Structure formats: C-alpha cells, structure tokens
C-alpha cells in the first residue's frame, strides 16, 4: 500500500516505513540513543531528499524519546538535574555547530566532513567500547570484579574542578565544568552530523562519570527529547522541510518499537548492553568507511538543489 508524501513529493510504501521505523525504534528504546544516525541514511537510501529526511527524523526522534522518557521517569531512572545541565550545554554547542556547518557548506566540502566524522567518530568510539566490553567480560570469566568500583575519595581529577554539584539520582558528586563541556561537544557534533548525539553521550556518561547505565539512558533520552523538539521547530520554520505524513508513519512504528526496546533493556545485563552498543556503533562507522575507501560503482552523482523540492 502506497501513500504520497506531500513535502518529500514521492509515494512510499506504508508497511515498509512502519517496519523500518519499528526496528530503529526498538534499538532506540534499548540503548537510549535517538536512532537518527540509523534512520536518516535509510530514508535517504529510499530517495527521500536529504533535507526532508533529516528534518522529519528529528520529529520522529522527539516522539519516540518522549515515550522513553516517560517510561524511565516512572521508574525514577532519570536525573532531571543532570539532564538540565546537559540541555544547557547542548544548546551552546548546537549554535557553534550550525555556524561550522554553514561555513563548510560554503566551502563545498560538507559531504566529506560528514563522512570523515562518521568514520572516525564511530570507529573510535565503537572500537574503544568494544575493547572495554570484551575486557570486562574476560575479567568476569576469570572471577575478578568485572568493573572497577568507584571508591570514596578516588574520583578522577576532572570531577574535582570547582562548582561541584550533587546529582542524587546519578549517584554523582562532581564539578559542572566537565559535564557542560561534554554537552557542548555533543551539541556541536549533533548539529554538524544531524544526529541527537545519544550514541556519544551514553558511553561518555558511563565511562567518564561512572553513572549507573539505567539512569544514563533515561537522562540521555531527556536531553534528546528537548533538543529534537527544538530541532523540529527550527527545521519547519527555516526550511519547511518537515513532512507531517512521513513523520506520523515513522512515529507510529518508532514509538511501538521503542516500547519493546525499553522493555528488553531491563532484561539485559550491563556487559551485554555495552557489547551490543559497541558493535552497533562500530558497524555504522564501518559502513561509512566502506563508502570512503571502496571505489564507487558510479563515480558520478546528481544533486538537485534543496529548493527544487
């Protein structure tokens, strides 16, 4: 069954969109990532204009993270205070990211910047996570404690900077400076790559601040909810590129998928959670690396100016 998308200006199969967004929604609910970094390339592959894909996925991510936030909120696995600091820093980073984005577009090298960033970011983060997950799995097998527990008084240096704040739900007492800096970096990357940044935020909070994974996922989803709602509005006002019908289809599939993902996350132990997330991120990085290193089957490509749509 096909439906015509008024903004993307092409017909699309309803069942295919529901299936795709359901699968991505499941992953999103499972790992607390927005899923935009998976869904946007898939939609572009289906011939949807890139501007429409990025803008519409923002709406979808906002909706499916809403579901997740409510679920984690009910389970009290959400740190509002930490989330607010992240949102604040994220906004500052986004502004710089948009400025950088526009200057690279003027230079005509935006495609290369995006592909290179995907490759380096995803392979490095995914590789590090994979290494760490495997190492702790081996430790567990050898009968040693799988994770180095955070001992009282043994905080890393960056937590001891001034302006320390107490985040009760995250069991964290640390300086605001490194947290805000992390949020700024993620806002910057998110704006340049058109993703929420959950895939960086989740591992960073787990590794650098040793926050319990359950709280990390809820808090990350909260940050994504706020930024992606803002991004939807921004795209609608500046480019008129949000497709309401496509967004509705993606949402129906996405929120249902996210429900099952969130439920599955409860039955997942920390080690397999980290291993799976590492493999997911690494495989996306490798996919972009293939695009960069393998000779293209067709060296030519045609670009329709965005205003054409």
């Amino acid at each position, binding site marked *: 069954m096909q439906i015509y998308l008024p903004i993307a200006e092409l*017909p699309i199969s309803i069942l295919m969109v529901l299936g795709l967004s359901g699968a991505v929604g499941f992953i999103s609910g499972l790992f607390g990532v927005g899923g935009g970094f998976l869904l946007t390339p898939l939609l572009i592959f289906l011939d949807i204009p890139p501007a429409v894909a990025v803008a519409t996925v923002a709406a979808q991510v906002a909706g499916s993270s809403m579901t997740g936030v409510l679920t984690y909120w009910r389970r009290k696995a959400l740190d509002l205070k930490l989330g607010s600091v992240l949102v604040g820093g994220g906004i500052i980073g986004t502004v710089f990211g948009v400025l950088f984005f526009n200057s690279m577009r003027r230079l005509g090298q935006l495609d290369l910047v995006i592909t290179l960033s995907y490759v380096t970011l995803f392979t490095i983060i995914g590789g590090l996570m994979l290494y760490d997950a495997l190492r702790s799995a081996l430790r567990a097998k050898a009968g040693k404690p799988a994770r180095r527990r955070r001992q009282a008084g043994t905080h890393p240096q960056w937590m001891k900077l001034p302006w320390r704040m107490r985040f009760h739900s995250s069991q964290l007492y640390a300086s605001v400076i490194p947290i805000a800096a992390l949020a700024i970096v993620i806002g910057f990357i998110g704006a340049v790559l058109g993703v929420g940044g959950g895939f960086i935020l989740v591992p960073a909070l787990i590794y650098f601040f040793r926050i319990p994974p359950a709280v990390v996922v809820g808090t990350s989803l909260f940050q994504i909810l706020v930024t992606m709602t803002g991004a939807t509005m921004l795209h609608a006002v500046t480019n*008129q590129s949000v497709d309401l*019908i496509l967004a509705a289809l993606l949402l129906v599939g996405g929120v249902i998928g996210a429900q099952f993902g969130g439920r599955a996350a409860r039955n997942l132990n920390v080690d397999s959670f980290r291993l799976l997330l590492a493999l997911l991120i690494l495989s996306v990085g490798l996919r972009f690396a293939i695009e960069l290193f393998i000779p*293209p089957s067709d060296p030519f490509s045609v670009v329709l100016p965005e205003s054409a749509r």
Partner: protein
Amino acid sequence: MKGFRSLAAALLLTSIAATAPRAETLIASVSSHQIQISSNYTGDQLTVFGLVERGGRTVARGDPYDIVVTVRGPQRMLIVREKERLGPIWINRTQRRFVDRPIFLMVSSNRPLNEIVNEDAARRDRIGLANTQRNLPPELYYEESTVRFRQALIRILEDKGLYAQDERGVTFLSETLFSAPIDVPATAPTGSYEIEIALYSGGAMLARQTTNFEVIKTGIEQRLATGAHDHPFLYGLATAAMALLLGWLSSVIFRRD
C-alpha cells in the same frame, strides 16, 4: 474523451481558418491539462493526439512524416559531481553545474531519432535528451568533459525514471493522424510541463506545435504543503505536538508497571 472533443473542436477551427496553407500545419491536443496528486497518487498517463494537415497547395513529399514529441518538466539548476581518488579515499573532486535543466524530460518518436534527423540539426532544434540547452556554442557542446558530465546526468536521471526516450512511442493511426502516450512517474516534480510536437520529413523540421499540462497537489496533500510554507511556525508546532502526543499515547497504551 475530453481530449477527443477538444481535438475535434480544434480540427473544425483550423479547417475554417486555414484557407491557403503553404506547408503542413500541425494540430495537437493532450488528453488532460492537469494531473492531480492525491494521497494515493502513484503516477499518471496522458495521451497526445495530433494531425498533420495538408493544404491544397502543399507540395507532395517523397519522404514519410516523422513526429517527435518532447515533454519538458520544470527547470532547475542541476549539479553533477564526480568522485576521484585522493590517496586512499574517494571524494567528490570536480563538479559541473547545468543551468536551467528540466528535471523531467521525455522524448518520444515514431522511429529512432538518428533516422529522423541528423546530429547537428537535432542540436539546433533542441531534439533529444542531450539537447535541452539553448544557445550552447559548439566548441563547448562537444568539449570532452562537458560530454562526460552530460552523459552521466542523462544516465542517472534515466535510472531514476525522470528522463526517458521512447523510439517507438509515437504511433501513426493513419498517414497523418498520430498519438503518443506520456507516462508521468510519481517522482516527477510538481509544476508546469511543456509538450512540444515537431513534424519532420526528410530530416527537415516542417512544423512545430506546443501545448502544456501541469502537475499539482490536491486535497490534503495540497493543504499540508501550503500549510508548511504559509504558516511554518504553526506547522512546526503541530508536528512537534503530534510527535509528543503519539509518544505519550504509546506509553499509556503499553503501560504495564
């Protein structure tokens, strides 16, 4: 049916007006002047009908008539990029801009174009997929890299179904009456389309006639598209509200704990 009736009316008018034609005249009509996009739209088909009219003093021709129908969609600037190797990676190195290219182009004829008209004349008459640009000097037209990029553009748009060439698309129903179907794919852009019908005989163009149609959105498709452009803030607000509402709704429906 509408097409037949307007064709009949056109025939009647011309037979009154054309009392002393020197050469052939071309009369043509299209089955509909509007394609409406609704939510179940998956493309549409139109038909062009036409008649070659010979006056009493028209010279007898040794060669048969040939018809070339060209449909040009809305024009935009298209950019073609070529990936090249730089060290270990492949990146877009060179690009070529094609100004005022139709996004949709269909060329239909009763036999292969190279049998109807020679290459130079085709370029002058703007006949064929490669010849859409007006006033292009020959040295630029035949320049090696221009040819390469132009061929890539045509090949990629043909793959997308936006460019098409049909060497048997025009059917002669009699010696002078012809028809040609026009397939408009679902991905063809909205806007106005020009249909140009050219009459050839012995490699020379005898007459040319244009008509047009438009592709527009109707119903909910149109309301959403105009809403997005005329009230972007409200549209964005509605989308965001819908997203959050659906998110909340699903957490209520699936609530178990």
